[in-house]
């Protein structure tokens, strides 16, 4: 009765790689679902300043983005080199900010409309005049919660 036959001695049996595609597909689907494609392409230079006392800004659906800075290299021929505001995918004037914020706010769900934050993504080299103008416009439409988006780092690096 040799039901439990001794295995034939020899090489270790090869590990089956048949399930390898399944594993890889699983990972693939994970990354496919978490990937967020950038929805607006930047048309301005956007080197954010550094700050250390930062708060996280999560929940993307509660944020309205405003970009500002010098136009990128390829737009400089048409738009010049002075700092500009970018709303969605186009350059805008200071006077357009209020309308933009109102339009974005109207797009959001009703329960979120009161908790919106306006994230200002402004290039380091921009002058404060433009930012003051934006802030003035935001005050007009009562969008008072703002966030100066920064990179995390030592604030003294801004001064170099």
């Amino acid at each position: 009765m040799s039901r439990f036959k001794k295995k034939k001695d020899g090489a270790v049996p090869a590990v089956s790689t048949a399930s390898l595609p399944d594993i890889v597909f699983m990972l693939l689907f994970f990354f496919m679902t978490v990937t967020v494609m950038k929805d607006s392409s930047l048309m301005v230079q956007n080197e954010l300043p550094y700050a250390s006392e930062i708060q996280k800004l999560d929940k993307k659906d509660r944020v309205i983005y405003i970009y500002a800075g010098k136009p990128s290299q390829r737009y400089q021929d048409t738009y010049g080199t002075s700092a500009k505001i970018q709303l969605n995918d186009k350059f805008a004037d200071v006077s357009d900010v209020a309308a933009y914020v109102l339009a974005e706010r109207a797009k959001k769900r009703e329960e979120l409309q009161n908790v919106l934050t306006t994230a200002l993504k402004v290039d380091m080299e921009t002058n404060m005049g433009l930012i003051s103008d934006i802030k003035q416009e935001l005050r007009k439409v009562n969008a008072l919660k703002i966030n100066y988006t920064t990179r995390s780092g030592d604030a003294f690096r801004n001064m170099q």
Partner: protein
Amino acid sequence: MARRGGAPEVNAGSMADIAFLLLIFFLVTTTIETDSGLDRKLPPIDTPETDVIIKQKNIFTVEVNKNNQLLVEEELMELKDLRAAAVKFLDNGGGVGETGEQCDYCRGDRDPSSSDHPNKAVISLRNDRMTKYSTYIAVQNELVAAYNELRNREAQRLFNRPFTAMEAEYLDPKTSDGVKDELKPKIERIQAMYPQKLSEAEPKSN
């Protein structure tokens, strides 16, 4: 002679390679980033212009000119000294607060010519239209850091954990409501001890 019957089986051995290729593409393009920055609150535009008289000694003026130089309390200052100066001003506690009590938690010099009480102390920031944004952020960062330093100190003393950690947990959407309810009074207590009174004047245009 070719064999008949049944389509020939496609070799699936390269499926893993194709999947890997896609996987690597998505790995590279994924940015699991959360933006972060300095949260600020703008003053409402339709505030009735009531002239609140604030004593000069309770105002800490910070001015930034177009050459990105700092003028703090009428004196030229380097950015690296700003945080300490702001802490010294806020924590002075030289007089009585809004309700007439002394600041019993202040550890400052109690200089009668500086701020009376943290709840009376106002930091006033004014910048030029030509000031660079990076300088402005650096100044803001230092002033917020001064508040955070004092708040952390008090939170550490009262609740044994830094204020910034409590605040981060409170703002985190993953925190459960029970924990938030527990944190809220603590945060409010600390905030009342050192209220952030940072006023920004309209920039000078020239």
